[in-house]
């Protein structure tokens, strides 16, 4: 279990980052875009944890991944609250239809 080479984690994280980027670019629904951002944050976290395996007495990668997790939770709650507010105001969360700045 501890013999997995670091490259495999990095390739998995790169794939997850590419999928997240594709989701952010393709989807029109604001909630789906937020889930794509979560995927990209998770890809960064996998990289941090994978490199943290070589750092058994300090664990700096795992601690930074923990803080990234906290910030991701805060970001998700704020962004979903904004999505709900935007829906109440514009009656849509389609990102292409949100063109007005001063509503």
């Amino acid at each position, binding site marked *: 279990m501890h013999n997995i080479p670091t*490259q495999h984690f990095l390739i998995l994280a*790169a794939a*997850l980052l590419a999928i997240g980027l594709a989701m952010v670019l393709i*989807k029109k629904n604001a909630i789906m875009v937020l889930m794509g951002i979560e995927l990209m944050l998770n890809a960064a976290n996998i990289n941090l944890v994978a490199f943290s395996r070589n750092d*058994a007495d300090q664990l700096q990668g795992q601690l930074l991944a923990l803080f990234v997790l*906290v910030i991701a939770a805060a970001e*998700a709650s704020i962004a979903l609250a904004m999505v709900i*507010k935007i829906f109440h105001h514009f009656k849509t969360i389609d990102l292409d239809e949100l063109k007005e700045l001063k509503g």
Partner: protein
Amino acid sequence: MVSLICVAGVYVFAGADFLAIAHIMIYIGGILVLILFSIMLTRRNENPYPSSKNRAVWLSISVALSMFILLFTLILKFNYTTLANYSKPFITGSTIQLIGQLLMTKHLIAFELAGIVLMVALMGASWIATQHNEVEKIKKHA
């Protein structure tokens, strides 16, 4: 959403047991519920859901795929023996005790700041999502 939870399994394989459990708790207990509620609250009655049409699909897929290929070649070409910690031994056993000690000693300020940021963010989120005109209406009735 399943892939967000499966990341926890990858953490277990990387020897980060505490992080895997924290990830499962945050994503199932927090973010999954938040996303389900916001999907429920932003549903429209007239047409089912706006996510059926997408935009610039092939351009976006090619951008993402080219970025993946770039990262893939970089990862394969990188010389891992130049890393400073390369020869150190891997993590064996549980990391929970070490994470607890480090959070209470070396990373105490960052830990407290993360708590404050999370509290302010949750208060701000609940303030943003409140419908203030309805609150005024309720206050007038009372």
